[in-house]
C-alpha cells in the first residue's frame, strides 16, 4: 500500500473519531468498510478511534469524524476542545447532525423522562435538550443518516484526501428510487412514504424492499411537507401517526421543516 502522490515524506493526515450521545452505529460504519480499511489506514493515521483501538494519540487531528449529540454539560466543553484540535470536522449521523432520537426530550420535560427511565435520577447529569454539534461549534460537513451510509462515508473521506467537495447530493430519496428502477410504493401501493421529503443517501433501502421511507436521513435540500401531509392522510395515517412518523431520528430537523412548511 502506497500513500498518495503529492504528500512528501509519507506523513499521513491524522484521523480522530469521537463520540457524544449516540449508539456507536455510525462509527461502526467505518469499521464496516472492510475492503477499504487497509486503504484508509494507508492514507490516514488513525490517531484516535477508541471504538477500534485503545491506543489513542493526542491531537491535533487533520480530520475529525464526530458522532453523537450534545446532551450533557461535559459535552459542551468537550466539543469545543475537539473543534480546537481539528482542522476539518465532519459530523456523522442523525445524532450529530440533528440531535438524534434523544432530541425527543426537546419537546418534553426532561425531568419526567429521568424519573421514568432511571431508578436514581439524582445520579444523572443531563442537559434539557439534545442538540446537533453544529449548534455549538462550526462544522465543515454534515453527513446524514441513521445510520450513515458506508459508501457516503468513504466518499467524504476520499474527498477530504483529494481536497475536493464530497459528492453527496441534497435531493430526495425519489431520485434514488428512480435510479434503481423501483416501483413507487406510495403511488402504486398506497404505502405511506417520507421519500419525497427525505434526503437521499441510503440508496432507497426501504422502498427497494417494498416499505415506505422512514426519513432516517432527515429532510432533503428542498421540501414541501405541507404537500405530503394530505397524501399521508389519504393512505390511512391520522395526525398522531404523522407526528410520530416525522418525529423519530431527525425530530429537530423535521420539526424545523414543519414550522416552515405547515403554517
Amino acid at each position, binding site marked *: 500500500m502506497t500513500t498518495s502522490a503529492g504528500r512528501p515524506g509519507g506523513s499521513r493526515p491524522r484521523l480522530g473519531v469521537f463520540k457524544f450521545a449516540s449508539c456507536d452505529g455510525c462509527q461502526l460504519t467505518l469499521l464496516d468498510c472492510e475492503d477499504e480499511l487497509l486503504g484508509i489506514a494507508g492514507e490516514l493515521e488513525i490517531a484516535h478511534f477508541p471504538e477500534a483501538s485503545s491506543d489513542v494519540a493526542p491531537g491535533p487531528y487533520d480530520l475529525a469524524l464526530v458522532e453523537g449529540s450534545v446532551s450533557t454539560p461535559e459535552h459542551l466543553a468537550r466539543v469545543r476542545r475537539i473543534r480546537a484540535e481539528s482542522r476539518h470536522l465532519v459530523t456523522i449521523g442523525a445524532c450529530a447532525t440533528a440531535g438524534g432520537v434523544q432530541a425527543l426530550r426537546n419537546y418534553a420535560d426532561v425531568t419526567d423522562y429521568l424519573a421514568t427511565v432511571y431508578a436514581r435520577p439524582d445520579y444523572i447529569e443531563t442537559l434539557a435538550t439534545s442538540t446537533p454539534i453544529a449548534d455549538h461549534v462550526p462544522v465543515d460537513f454534515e453527513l446524514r443518516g441513521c445510520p450513515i451510509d458506508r459508501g457516503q462515508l468513504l466518499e467524504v473521506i476520499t474527498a477530504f484526501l483529494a481536497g475536493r467537495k464530497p459528492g453527496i447530493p441534497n435531493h430526495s430519496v425519489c431520485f434514488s428510487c*428512480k435510479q434503481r428502477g423501483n416501483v413507487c410504493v406510495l403511488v402504486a401501493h398506497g404505502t405511506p412514504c417520507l421519500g419525497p421529503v427525505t434526503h437521499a443517501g441510503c440508496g432507497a433501502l426501504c422502498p427497494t424492499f417494498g416499505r415506505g421511507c422512514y426519513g432516517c436521513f432527515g429532510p432533503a435540500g428542498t421540501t414541501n411537507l405541507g404537500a405530503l401531509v394530505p397524501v399521508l392522510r389519504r393512505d390511512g395515517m391520522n395526525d398522531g401517526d404523522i407526528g410520530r412518523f416525522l418525529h423519530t431520528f431527525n425530530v429537530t430537523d423535521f420539526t424545523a421543516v414543519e414550522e416552515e412548511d405547515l403554517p
Partner: protein
Amino acid sequence: MTGPGDIRAATGAPTEAVLGRDGLDALVQVLKRRGRTVVGPTVRDRAVVLAELDSADELPHGWGVELEAGRYRVRRRTDGAVFAHSAGPQSWKSFLHPPRVRQWTAERDADGGLTVCEDEPPAVSYAFLGVRACDLHAIRILDRVMIGGKYPDPAYGSRRKGVFLVAAECTEPGATCFCVSMGTGPAVDTGYDLALTEVVDDGGPRFLCRSGSEEGAAVLAELPRHQADDTTRTAAAEAVRRAAGNMGRSMPPTDLRALMRDNLEADRWDDVTARCLNCGNCTMVCPTCFCTTTEDVSDLTGDHAERWRRWDSCYDLDFTLLHGGPVRAGKRSRYRQWLTHKIGTWHDQFGSTGCVGCGRCIVWCPTGIDLTEEAHALHQEATRQGPTP
C-alpha cells in the same frame, strides 16, 4: 423511408399478417436469435414495468391498470389481453439514456502523469416490444435532443442505433392519457419496424401486425401467421378509433407555447407550488426529460478517478447552483421552469413540444399534480384577464 408496398416489392416479404399467441411467442425468440436484447412490459412489484424478456410468457397477459393523478393500481382482466395497459413507471428512456453511465476513467502513472480512458459506447442491440404511439414520439424527441444537434451523444447514439421497434397501438388509454391532444396517438404512424394492434373479441386474442421496415418484414416472414382478414382489420381500426375517443385528459384548445410564454406571472403558479413536493419524480418518469449532471469520483489513493453522468432534475436546488447560490431558488420558479420548458420553450430549443401526452408525470406525482389541469387553469386565468393568448 420506404413504404410497406415498396418493401414487399423489394423483398417479397409480408407487410401485414395476423399473429396469434404462437406468433407473439415466436416474435420474442426470433428477435433474440437475431442478437437482440428484448425489452418489454412485464408485471413486477404490482406494476407493469419494462424489463428484459426471455419469452412472451413474461408479458402482462390478462393484466390491466387503473390510473389517476398520484395513483396507480394493477388489476386482473378477464379477457387475457396483453397490451391493454397504459404507461407504467418507466419509459424507454431508462434503456436509451440510463440513469447512471460512466464516461471515462483516469489513472495516475508512477511518474505522476495521467492516462484518461474514455468508456466505449455499449455493444447492446435492443428490441423494444410494445412501444405505444406516444412513446414512439418520445423516442423521436429524445433522438433530436441527444443525437440530432451539433454535439451528438455517442453513448445514446450507440444504444439507439440498432433498436428494433415493435409498436403496440393503444386500444385502452388510461384516465391520465392525452395523446390525442398532443397529436401523438393512439395510432402509430411511422418510425417502427413492426406495429401490433391487439384485437380481443369472440375470435380470441390476436394481433394485426404490420411491417414498417425491411427488417420488420423479414422478421414477420419468420413468424407463424395468418393472412390478414377484413374482420381483424376492421376490429383493429375500430379499437384504435374507440381509444382516441376515450382519452382521460386533454390539453386546452390553445397555443400552449404562447400560453406558457405569456403567463409567467400568473397566480396559478403559486397554487401549484403549494402542492409541489419538489421531489423530481415527474422529470424522472417523463420519457423526454433528459437533463443530467456529472459526478467525479476518486479512490482513497487518488490514483484512480472516474466521471459518471447521472439523471438530474430541474426540481433539485443544486441543479442551478452557481457561485452565490441557485439560479432558481424559489419552489415556484422550479415547477414553472419544468412546465414552461416542457410544453413551451422546448419548441424554441428543439423545434417541437417536449410532451407526448403519456400522462406518466400525472400518475407518478405523489401529490397528483396534473399538467393538463394546470394548463387549463392557466388558460382560464389568461382568458379572464385579457385577450386569449
